[in-house]
Structure formats: structure tokens, C-alpha cells
């Protein structure tokens, strides 16, 4: 078996779920599986940031892409588009949106997977790919993301590659009512 469970993190009216240990050079790929995460408030984005352990400000430098597809109940609306509001340029240093808005009704939640590649590398920027599905206001949405993470401001490929050792997940502006994150190492 090549997918090894490292830790489980359960939200219960939590401000954030932080993984502060276990991200090392033991694996070249870490997968974070999201199971039915629900926000306390309606209509908020699911986000993450990382840090190096010495910088605990959760403000690394990310260049990312974002694409959403959707379908509304009753076939009222269906389409897909790039989403400028969910991608980042290097200077933003903000939390990275893995979804668009997620609903808080009893039957609404998000699930998905984030793959973070070689976080312990000190040679390269860190690549990630994610895919999440979520529901809000009768919309089923499919969120595709990718990005590359630097640990200092971009300067044409230098000084950006300290090891990443920690990751923090949260909803944009409210607590996590419930849900589970499992971190796996892939080998």
C-alpha cells in the first residue's frame, strides 16, 4: 500500500485545522483528503496557507490558477470558467482559495483532495494540484486548482525555496462547523 495515513484532523466549531507536524522529507507527495467540511456561515471559501516553521505568519508567495464548473438544480445554469477572484499572483501572500463559496445548510458540504509535491525540497518551488466538489444554494460546483509556492518574494527563480513544514486550512471568514481532514504520504 503506498498511501500511508499520517494524521487525522477533525473540525468542531474550529477556527482552523492546522497540521504542524509530519510534513517532512519522508514523502515526495502529501495528500490532504477533505471529508464533508461544513462552514458555520453560509457562502464562504475553503482556503489554505503554508509556512516554513520559522515563519508562522501563513503568508507564503503563491502563483496559482483557478477554474470552476457548475450545474444548478433544475438545469437552470451550467457552465465552467476560469475564476480570477480565486487565483493569486506572487505578491498577494494571501490564503489560497481551494473552492468558491460553500453552503452551510444541513445537506451542504465540501469534499476533495489537495496534493502537495515535495514540500521538503529546497531546490524548487512547491507545486500543488487540487480538486474539490462543493454545494451551495442548489449549485453543485467542481473546483480545479494548481499553484506553485515560494517562500520568499519572486526574483526570477532565487531565494524562494525553503522547506515547507506546516499547513493550515480554514474557511474564509468563519469557523469550521464540522468535517475531517486526513493527511496521507504517498510513496
Amino acid at each position, binding site marked *: *500500500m*503506498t498511501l500511508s495515513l499520517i494524521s487525522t484532523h477533525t473540525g468542531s466549531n474550529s477556527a482552523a485545522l492546522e497540521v504542524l507536524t509530519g510534513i517532512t522529507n519522508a514523502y*515526495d*507527495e502529501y495528500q490532504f483528503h477533505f471529508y464533508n467540511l461544513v462552514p458555520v456561515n453560509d457562502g464562504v471559501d475553503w482556503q489554505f496557507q503554508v509556512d516554513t516553521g520559522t515563519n508562522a505568519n501563513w503568508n507564503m508567495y503563491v502563483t496559482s*490558477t483557478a477554474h470552476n464548473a457548475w450545474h444548478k438544480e433544475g438545469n437552470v445554469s451550467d457552465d465552467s470558467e476560469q475564476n480570477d477572484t480565486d487565483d493569486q499572483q506572487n*505578491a498577494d501572500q494571501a490564503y489560497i482559495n481551494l473552492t468558491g463559496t460553500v453552503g452551510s445548510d444541513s445537506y451542504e458540504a465540501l469534499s476533495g483532495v489537495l496534493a502537495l509535491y515535495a514540500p521538503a525540497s529546497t531546490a524548487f518551488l512547491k507545486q500543488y494540484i487540487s480538486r474539490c466538489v462543493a454545494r451551495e444554494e442548489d449549485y453543485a460546483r467542481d473546483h480545479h*486548482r*494548481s499553484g506553485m509556492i515560494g517562500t520568499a518574494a519572486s526574483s526570477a527563480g532565487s531565494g524562494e525555496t525553503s522547506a515547507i513544514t506546516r499547513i493550515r486550512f480554514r474557511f474564509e471568514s468563519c469557523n469550521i462547523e464540522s468535517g475531517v481532514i486526513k493527511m496521507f504520504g504517498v510513496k
Partner: protein
Amino acid sequence: MPDIDKINNVAVADISKLDSITFADGQKVNNQDVSLVTDARVLIEAQTFTNESTVSFDSLGGTSYMAHLFQFINIHSDNNDVQFRFASNVSDDHQWANFVEIKHNETGTDDTSWAYDGSHDTLLNASTKEANLAAGLGSVATESLSGYLYIYGLNNTPLQHGKNWYSRTSHHSEDDYNVFTINQGIIVHDGSNANDAISQIDFTMSGGTFDGTIRCFGMALA
């Protein structure tokens, strides 16, 4: 039933994990019920390399895996603005693929939605051996690509028609974009529905050498 002292001549107390056990191997270990995974991913081969022009996985034949998963870790091109690509070793095979990418540059001055890129598509009967998995890779020291490729039915077992594949990669382009590439296609044999089993997959850049790690996993049948 007595407890088991050793498995494969290793003391049970010394075993911290069990790999590659299939359902056929048994249902109890040390007289304890175990849940045996029947669709596990099995590591077939891992290659970490530098300055290679071709990275070959040449022992893929004769297995019954339903699919093969190739994991790409920090693939770094030694030449600027090149394509990362793959092909089979069967001489009459060629590729029929759709190449789609979305990208955003570091300074936030440009981004594009998913778009087919006809220059990297490969057409049926074009006799193109290689399919591009990503385009425009950068060669600056910190620039790389990571992601994965699934290929189904390489050995015609149990899938005997066409080798479907799809890939997802994220990379740092030569002009400082993050590029998310979704690609999917079929390895077509001799432009027809005839299919030979494939025993080797080769990865190359469109020019020059490259570095990184590629792992090949087999997706086991139940």
C-alpha cells in the same frame, strides 16, 4: 489456530507494516482478522535521475494491472521552453490526444482560462509517437513540474481496446506562469483498433536532458 511467530522468516513483533498482501494471501494475521486491500497501488519502479535524455520504464509487460500510475516529482528541464512528453515502445503506436491548459503569471498581469492548444494536440493517424504532457517548461534552477499520468490496460488485461490515458500536471513555465495542464488521449496502434500489449513507456523532453523523480505504480486487480 495457533498464533503465527514469523512471516516470511521475519518475527511478527518486528513487522511494522504489511505491503503487497492480496486477498488471496489470507484473511488472518497472527490470528487477528485483517482487512486486506484488493485494489492497492503497488510500487513497480522508482527512478531518480539527472541529465537524462530518456527515462524508460521497460518492465511493464506481463502483468495484470488494470492501470499504471506515473507520479512526477520536480521534473526539471535542462533546456528552456521545451515540452515534457511520453510514448510507448511499440513501433506502430501513435497518439491521439487533447491538450488543455490554464495559466496565471507571477505578477498577476495575465491569466487564461482552460483552452485547447492545437499546437500540442495530436491527431488520429498523425503517426506522432509522443504526446505532450506539458508545454513551455522553464529551466531556471527553481522551476519544475509535478503531477501524474494514468494509463489503462497496457497489457490488454482486462481492457483490450485502446490504451486510454489522462494526466494532470502543475509546472513553472519558462515565462514565469503557473500552468495547470489537463491532457487525455488514446495510444492508437497502427491507426486502427488493433492493439499490441505495451511493455515500455518512455519519458523525454522535446529537446535536451532533464532531472527529477518518476515512480510507476500498478493498480492491482481485485
